[in-house]
């Protein structure tokens, strides 16, 4: 975690002036087009290769929308999304197909992202087969073992697993494809503190051992602090802070980051926490 072997690793993603807006149907006038809501207002950042980049912000900050553009589940309205030097922002589905294996995702809710009718090994093996990377039972078990689940889990169904175990299966499915990039969107927010700590330390170990490039979306700055190398703080679709985790947490530049940090209730007796009134009204 947080080790800096190369001071400036090459960027896997270079994003320049990324913009996206949605039509606001709730406020559409009777005649004429619906007004647009700007979700991302010109983001520019690099995601370094072999590092964990944290993307943090409150609900409505645009962090998940941004993540979905990285794995091209959404297309940007304007701006550049360079993946390994190639602009993937404007590619159509056919042109994206050869890149799909390299852009994997781990979802927030494993119960809805793992097929309830499939055994664990098949959940992992099916995409491997789809992308022509083997995909037999043995390969699935190898992936399971990498996430700390023994072979006996291969024949279970998702509902027979705990929340933490399900999230490990989601991780196994992603890493089995050996992608160049993994997006993890709020993957520990539904877990108890102890399974949360387990999944995070697993992810940190895997990232170090396999040299994964990971974007980790979370609303929880404490989790970002312990997992990520660099962090980007989003607020209303704009970047308000970015840099190495230590710098941003020790010397936050924006009032937003400061209030996010000070609002965290720490597990210690400290009445002065209440004195800070910087939260929004």
């Amino acid at each position, binding site marked *: 975690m947080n080790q800096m072997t190369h001071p400036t690793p090459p960027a896997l993603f270079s994003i320049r002036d990324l913009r996206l807006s949605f039509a606001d149907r709730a406020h559409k006038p009777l005649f004429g087009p619906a007004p647009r809501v700007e979700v991302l207002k010109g983001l520019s950042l690099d995601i370094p290769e072999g590092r964990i980049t944290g993307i943090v912000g409150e*609900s409505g900050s645009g962090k998940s929308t941004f993540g979905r553009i990285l794995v091209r589940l959404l297309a940007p309205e304007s701006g550049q999304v360079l993946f390994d030097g190639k602009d993937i922002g404007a590619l159509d589905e056919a042109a994206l197909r050869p890149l799909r294996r390299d852009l994997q995702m781990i979802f927030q809710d494993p119960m809805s992202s793992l097929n309830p009718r499939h055994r664990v090994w098949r959940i992992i093996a099916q995409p491997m087969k789809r992308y022509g990377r083997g995909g037999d039972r043995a390969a699935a078990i190898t992936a399971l073992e990498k996430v700390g689940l023994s072979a006996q889990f291969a024949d279970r169904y998702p509902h027979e697993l705990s929340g933490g175990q399900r999230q490990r299966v989601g991780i196994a499915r992603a890493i089995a494809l050996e992608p160049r990039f993994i997006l993890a969107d709020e993957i520990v927010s539904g877990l108890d503190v102890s*399974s949360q700590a387990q999944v995070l330390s697993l992810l940190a170990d895997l990232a170090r051992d396999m040299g994964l490039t990971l974007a980790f979306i979370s609303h929880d700055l404490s989790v970002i602090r312990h997992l990520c190398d660099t962090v980007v703080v989003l607020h209303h679709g704009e970047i308000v802070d970015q840099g190495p985790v230590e710098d941003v947490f020790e010397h936050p530049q924006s009032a937003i980051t400061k209030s996010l940090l000070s*609002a965290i209730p720490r597990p210690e007796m400290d009445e002065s*926490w209440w004195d800070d009134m910087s939260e929004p009204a």
Partner: protein
Amino acid sequence: MTMTTAHAHTLDIINLNIALPRGQRLLRNVSLQLEPGEVRALVGESGAGKSMIGKAVLGILPHRIKRTEGEILLEGAHLNAMTPATRRSTVAKMSALIPQDPLTALNPVRKIGPQITDPLTRIHGWSHQRALARARELLDRVHIRAPDRVMHSYPHELSGGMRQRILIAAAFAPSPRLIVADEPTTALDVTVQKQILRLIRELQRETGTAVLFVTHDMGVVAKISQKVTVLFAGRVIEDAATRTVFENPAHPYTQALIAATPTPNVSAEPFQPVPAALITELHRETLAADALYAQRGRR
């Protein structure tokens, strides 16, 4: 009707056991007290039974889950000795719930106003004018800027933080003796969470209402409560003043829960999972306690 005794605890749970129909135990000999004006946190991981305690007090346990043993006293009155109808009206008059998910707790096809005033007129027998005035007062107290406009809105027209503030206003409106807050900030952003915790704390101090605060977050426990009950698998693991729990936790499981809580401190050690050996030991103790309980039941 059971008589109310002087100097009673607001809430007194004595040796409460609840179980599934086949006898699987969900709460194991749980005892705890809540004094007037006190906030007691119920903390534990999922399945620890923390929400179950609140549901047992309010009499809203799922119908298959039954109390097998133990007493619940609200201001000295034995809830279990009452007829279901008396119990319902006693609980409704004396207590309120702040639920986790404000969207499912509010009726989506009714305006906010009547959802706050209805319990005041129907359960507490207030006049419509008095209920309306109190609703306005409380909405203003929870920093809702245009109370009249909000009272004419439907739940889907409001943000999550606003809906949670409305439920807090509704819970405190009749100044109940007891409020059960069931993970009221779990779905919220940290800044909104702080705002909601502040409101609960302020209103609770003003009204002298005792709060049973269910949470899984040791950080929230440290800020909001004066007493803590730590639960594991339906058992009370530790019961102490909040300061004692954080400065000198007696049980290794309490220590482990604190160590597993993430903090943003740059210098802090990365948070540690609860050791597997400790969990195994706790489960072993639970099984042993269950065996003893079953043996005693047969005699």
